[in-house]
């Protein structure tokens, strides 16, 4: 578990939808800093927030967030 980390596709999905971190934050109801720290892997979101993000991008949570070996 310690040699695994959470990777995410938020940046890719944002690019596909052509929206900024601020716009995404506004849709989800969080601050831009929250999106930024999740995107850069500094902050691991709660399940609720992960589901909200996945729903917004219309993909599965495990497609948006994946566990990768360090």
């Amino acid at each position, binding site marked *: 578990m310690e040699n695994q980390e959470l990777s995410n596709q938020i940046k890719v999905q944002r690019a596909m939808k052509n929206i900024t971190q*601020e716009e995404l*934050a*506004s849709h989800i*109801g*969080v*601050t*831009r*800093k*929250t999106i*930024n*720290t999740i995107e850069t892997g500094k*902050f691991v*979101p*709660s399940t609720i*927030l992960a589901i909200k993000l996945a729903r917004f991008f219309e993909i599965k949570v495990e497609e948006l967030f994946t566990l990768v070996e360090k």
Partner: protein
Amino acid sequence: MIEKLDNARSSFLKWATVGYTIWFGTYIVADPFFLPEIPSVIQWIRILGWLILLVSGLRAMKLKRELRWDKKMQGALEGELYQYNLRKSFQMGFFVVMGVTSVFLMLSLFYTIPALLVTKVILYLGGLAVLISKMFYNRD
């Protein structure tokens, strides 16, 4: 709007840290252990620090009142990242308080230090650790 309020909050947190550092700092610098009489310049600096802290506190209260009527905004501004950083900041404050207390405990084996000064220093550094670490975790 969320961004604007978040930036405003970061700004008054910085000013609150400055105000607290100056205001409480003067109580340590001008402690009878160091200075038998409080020079008037320190009193003026203390008032300045207190005013900065007061303005920051009023701004924080204003924001809190505004958020009370807007649950969506409150949810965004006091979301999970905010709560997470707040917990980490208080954790840092706790470690600093424990560390400084341990240092004073060791020093007390060799020196006589007034209890009031020790209390002031522990409170000062503990509070400062919370504020500084909050600013640190809050940065982009």
